[in-house]
């Protein structure tokens, strides 16, 4: 096992990985930008190396500085967390080149899953259903129009290297496809350095269901059930829960088994998440694979009792999985709220500042509560990075009890100094739409309040 591990990230995920290191007797070594040196989360590390100024390009995305930090602190492994360099195949390959074990999949699989249409083709070969559409990138507007006519309208044009809505165009007719193709390609080129565009049938009002998988180097794979992440705003997840209220037990078992088979067929190693879109007629189609630890992983940890971050490190150290699918017991229901420093009453305007009070009650409601955060009262929420303050996860025997526990915890929460999204979460949890389990990605249930 590793003696020292570099945590190549910041904030909440850095604290989470440090905790996994401690559980395995590994010394966590941190990296931080100049302003983050003052933050309390760096106390979770045995040692911290300052990477550079605040700008991410000069600190948390500075590949050379991070690798040098690993070498000079004698770290033999590196965990990238999520965001920043977590899905950079180049970074993963450079780690290997410099003799540092990258906690994640191999660079070639990461590269394959990082581009949309090859990933889709690979998953189709691996046996997963995919959204009907083009077989790979489209050559021009004529090819796009022909494909759209085959698939049927509406369709959506998407950037092959894209994400976050850039380069996406929804089209209702052949004329719209022809008109939108050039603009989408130009936007994709400007945003991602590639104008490659593919096309899919547009599925409105679906549900985002994803499966957590763990695979070792010995051909073993397990899934830890699914997470339903359909409460979203502008493609950003707000609330995640497991199990999904939309799936039957039979569908759940079938989806999990398919996801594990597909991951093993790819030669995937370590933790990964396969995302599916569940259409209104109940069909589940592959969307993409995230080749890293996910923000919402605690939901799966709460229902399975498996420490995913610990398993990631064990797998990277060439240990076989410590569990088999038969021994994975999924119990109860877990729901997670992402608390962001944003003002939901002012169009989610970012709200940096000093956190004066930061307190979540223990023991509120019938279930158990886990709060994952990097903040303490007195900490500064800087404008330089993302706005995640904390994740509050409730676990109980039933979905209703989990909602009750989470609602009671948020009601008793005291966060002062910055605006937060707690009012949004309380409104969603209290809404009939969420409580019934009948919601989708098209709208946030219970928000905005009437």
């Amino acid at each position, binding site marked *: 096992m590793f003696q020292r591990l570099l945590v190549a990230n910041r904030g909440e995920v850095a604290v989470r990985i440090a905790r996994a290191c401690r559980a395995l007797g590994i010394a966590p070594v941190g990296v931080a930008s100049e302003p983050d040196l003052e933050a309390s989360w760096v106390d979770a590390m045995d040692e911290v190396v*300052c990477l550079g100024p605040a700008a991410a390009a000069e*600190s948390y995305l500075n590949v*050379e500085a991070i690798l040098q930090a690993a070498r*000079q602190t004698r770290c033999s492994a590196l965990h990238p967390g999520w965001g920043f360099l977590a899905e950079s195949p180049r970074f993963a390959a450079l780690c290997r080149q*410099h003799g540092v074990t990258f906690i994640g999949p191999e660079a070639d699989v990461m590269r394959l899953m990082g581009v949309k249409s090859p990933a889709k083709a690979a998953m189709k070969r691996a046996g997963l259903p995919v959204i009907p559409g083009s077989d790979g990138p489209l050559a021009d507007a004529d090819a796009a129009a022909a494909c759209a006519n085959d698939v049927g309208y509406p369709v959506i044009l998407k950037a092959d290297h894209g994400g976050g809505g850039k380069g996406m165009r929804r089209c209702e007719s052949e004329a719209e496809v022809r008109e939108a193709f050039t603009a989408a390609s130009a936007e994709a080129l400007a945003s991602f350095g590639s104008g490659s565009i593919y096309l899919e049938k547009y599925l409105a009002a679906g549900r985002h269901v994803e499966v957590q998988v763990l695979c070792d180097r010995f051909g073993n794979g397990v899934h830890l059930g699914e997470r339903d992440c359909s409460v979203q705003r502008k493609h950003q997840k707000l609330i995640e829960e497991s199990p999904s209220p939309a799936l039957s037990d039979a569908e759940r078992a079938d989806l999990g088994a398919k996801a594990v088979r597909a991951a093993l067929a790819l030669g995937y190693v370590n933790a990964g998440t396969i995302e599916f879109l569940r259409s209104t007629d109940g069909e589940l189609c592959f969307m993409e694979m995230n080749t890293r630890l996910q923000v919402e992983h605690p939901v799966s940890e709460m229902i399975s009792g498996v420490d995913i971050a610990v398993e990631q490190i064990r797998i990277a150290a060439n240990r076989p999985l410590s569990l088999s699918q038969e021994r994975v017991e999924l119990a109860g229901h877990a729901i997670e709220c992402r608390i962001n420093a944003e003002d939901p009453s002012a169009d989610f305007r970012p709200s940096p500042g000093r956190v004066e009070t930061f307190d979540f009650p223990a023991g509120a409601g019938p279930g158990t509560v886990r709060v994952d955060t990097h903040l303490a009262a007195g900490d500064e929420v800087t*404008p*330089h990075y993302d706005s995640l303050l904390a994740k509050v996860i409730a676990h109980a025997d039933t979905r209703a009890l989990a909602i009750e526990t989470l609602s009671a915890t948020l009601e008793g929460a005291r966060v002062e100094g910055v605006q937060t999204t707690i009012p949004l979460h309380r409104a969603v949890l209290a809404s009939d739409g969420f409580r019934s389990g009948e919601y989708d990605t098209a709208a946030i249930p219970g928000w905005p309040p009437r």
Partner: protein
Amino acid sequence: MKPPLELTVRRDGDTVRLCAPAVGVFTCAAEAGRLLSPGAGAGVLLSLDVARELVVPAGVSGRVVSARPERIHEPVGFGTVLYELAPIEAGDVPGATTGETASTVASLALPAPHSGRFWHRPSPNDDAFVAAGEVIGPGHPVGMIEVMKTFTHVLYDPGKNLPARARILCLIAGDGAEVREGDPLVEVEPA
């Protein structure tokens, strides 16, 4: 050999500190008592087996009063203090000045509406929102400010102090520069 790296400078009263400009292993440190002047070599930083000479930046001079690191190869982070300099007479070192260059403060300048990172252009491949010599009026976008990955346009607002129609003289805040609320962004004159 890669080009030299300039040491970064921190000033505290008369004391000047020269700091590591990157993560790496510091070696070949200058000994205590040595006089450092702009452009002088002051050690080597090794990063991923590449050696780069560290040089004293323009506008900095002084006598090294700090001791060398205990280790010949000292691991350092960005900003680690490598040298502490005591002031010397500016005349002792031709071409050196001990103070920072006085910053140009615009007489008529549009202030930053809030803190964040100021960007001149909507995306890296686009033209800047405004250019020197351009005449603008109220509501004209002059740039964007990024806070927590959210971008908002900075619109020209004459308020009480600025002309309703203004000619751009220059962009004071750099492209991608950190700005604080009230910092001057764009210098203008009445058009």
